[in-house]
């Protein structure tokens, strides 16, 4: 009798496995179920789900299943695995700095029948790969200076405004600190560094379309890096940033200036006691800011490409774009929508939301080629060490240059 125990145990386990398989609620998708994968916080995913419901209401024969992934890294791992296994989602939302690896593999089905005249050209260009538009951009955000007017008033310092210079920003930071106010904080990554390099007259890469190396070893780029590092003397240094990020300090009303794109707005709006506004980044030799844009891409192997394109068009069009813009997180790529009160929201913070629209003619993209994502992450690691005083300027630019040559040559 005991001899048969193991066989019975195995049979029971197999039965449980079978039962678990049978409990699969999503295994038998209806033919017109679209899988849409996106990364983002709870509010962003909820907004996409809300948009998906609006789409279903309009196209009754299509069901949309939104797969929300909280972290970008997990989003990329899930996408890469699914593509490699030949079972990708029908639609996926990606930043242009990360879409190159999918574009290069030819797994994206180009959009059809889009009236591109309704959209800003800058994000369309960012999702154009080898001369062909591959994904439909939902937003055209850019880096700005968030500031707390109360803290500026307390220190008797004029608030930032369009056309202010690198010297103005430094002077404001110095005076704010002298008044006992923490002046400035920012992410210590390529996202922050790039627009300052451009403004100082430098370039981030040798060729945006076909980069072979990062070019932070030039005098203007070195000057921009030195300038940013010097600013940290008046604000949140690397150790403080690690312990309590600048974004949190700004949200609590303790930090005077914070550099970021539109993505920080929903969080700051939630902090009821916080009053904030935005201004363009300071200018050195020329106006420049970094393009931040995400787009809906359709998988060639998704199985429902027609419906998927319909969904992508709906998402970036006035109806879908309105739902996403209402979250406060996006600057719509649809021109008419971006100029409407849905985005400008005159009764909500920041009062100067039009800064993002004024920025559009000064936005510049980082490369969108296949190896760029890894190259940028690698460079950002070195930059973090630079701002933390663990690498000298020479060591930083040398490491970034060498590593970028290696990674971009793949």
């Amino acid at each position, binding site marked *: 009798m005991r001899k048969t125990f193991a066989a019975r*145990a195995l049979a029971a*386990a197999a039965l449980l*496995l079978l039962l678990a398989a049978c409990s699969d609620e*999503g295994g038998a998708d209806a033919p017109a179920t679209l899988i849409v994968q996106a990364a983002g916080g709870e509010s*962003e995913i909820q907004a996409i789900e809300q948009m998906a419901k609006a789409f279903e209401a309009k196209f009754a024969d299509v069901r949309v299943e939104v797969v929300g992934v909280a972290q970008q890294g997990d989003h990329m791992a899930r996408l890469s695995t*699914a593509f*490699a296994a030949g079972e990708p989602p029908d639609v996926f939302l990606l930043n242009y700095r990360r879409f190159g690896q999918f574009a290069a593999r030819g797994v994206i089905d180009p959009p059809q029948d889009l009236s591109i005249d309704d959209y800003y050209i800058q994000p369309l260009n960012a999702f154009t790969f080898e001369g062909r538009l591959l994904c439909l951009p939902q937003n055209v955000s850019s880096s700005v200076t968030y500031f707390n007017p109360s803290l500026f008033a307390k220190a008797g310092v004029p608030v930032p405004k369009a056309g202010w210079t690198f010297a103005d920003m430094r002077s404001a930071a110095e005076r704010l600190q002298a008044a006992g106010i923490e002046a400035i904080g920012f992410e210590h990554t390529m996202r922050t560094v790039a627009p300052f390099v451009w403004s100082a007259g430098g370039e981030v890469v040798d060729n945006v379309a076909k980069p072979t190396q990062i070019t932070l070893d030039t005098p203007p780029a070195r000057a921009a890096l030195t300038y940013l590092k010097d600013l940290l003397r008046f604000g949140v240094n690397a150790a403080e940033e690690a312990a309590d990020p600048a974004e*949190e300090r700004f949200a609590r009303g303790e930090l005077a200036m914070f550099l970021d794109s539109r993505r920080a707005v929903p969080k700051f709006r939630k902090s009821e006691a916080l009053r904030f506004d935005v201004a363009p980044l300071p200018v050195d030799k020329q106006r420049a800011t970094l393009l931040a844009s995400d787009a809906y891409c359709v998988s060639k192997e998704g199985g429902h490409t027609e419906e998927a394109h319909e969904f992508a068009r709906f998402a970036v069009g006035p109806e879908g774009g309105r739902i996403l813009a209402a979250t406060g997180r996006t600057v719509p790529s649809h021109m008419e929508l971006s100029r409407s009160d849905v985005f400008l929201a005159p009764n909500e913070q920041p009062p100067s939301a039009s800064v993002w629209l004024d920025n559009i003619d000064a936005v510049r993209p980082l490369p969108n080629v296949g190896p760029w994502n890894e190259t940028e992450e690698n460079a950002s690691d070195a930059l973090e060490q630079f701002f933390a005083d663990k690498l000298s300027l020479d060591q930083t630019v040398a490491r970034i240059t060498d590593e970028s040559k290696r990674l971009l040559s793949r």
Partner: protein
Amino acid sequence: MPTSPFFERSARPERAERSKFGSGAGSGAAVVGRAAVVVVFLTPVAFLVLGSLRAVGIPPAKGFELIPEGAGFEAYRALNDHIPIGLLLRNSALVALVAVPLTVLVASWAGFAMAQLPRRARTVALAATLGMLVIPLPLVWVPRFVLYNRLGVIDSLVPLMAPALAATTPFTVLLTYRAFRRVPPELFEAARLEGAGALSTWWRIGLPLVRSTTTAVAAIALALHWGNYLDALLYVRTPGNRTLPLGLSQLAGLDTNDAPILLAGAVVLTLPPLLLLALVQRPLLGAVQGER
């Protein structure tokens, strides 16, 4: 054959090994040392629990708070507003209920079989098992995806249980192998002479003598399956099939002012395995010190 003591048949009596291990048990230094270890491991748990008791919707604390601001269970009550905690717990429990016994069964079979192999075959099997330990996990993501997809079990709980069919990790096989190698071979030989088959020998002679190790294997399997985020991320899509770690990752997308909700979720994830491990700590210690 590897020459590490880990793989050698123990020549020392188990009791002597235990008494040696426990020789300093009563000394002050040992007590201080153990207390230090407890403090190191319990401090993050204390942070977790205290953080989860903080009021929701207020900016995060700047440092450690012994009494959290607005202390209460608001975050636990809010948990279900963000993730279907009951469903996630049910799915995680179902995975653990299948995968843990299956892991113990497969690992003990594999370990027992390896221990009975002739020397040359045993060396090959050991090398292969060790080799599998060093295979980077990302290498198996795609083959597994393809396999599960072909079997029609993608986006179900099966991919989360399936690793148990291979003992979850080669480490559990090595553990049971080591335990079975400690059993005097004469016992198995005697059983064979009395006509017992392999399964009967494993069940009646081997398994009762390595109970502490199988308990340890069960604990490892529980920890791995209960906290298995990656497989859930890669192979599960439908909300109804998600497990607790995946639900917890959704909470990571919450605003930092809602961090207590994330911490409350982490407490719910951590508590069941902690309680179970506390219940089986005696046999676990037995596995560390050597089989009785």
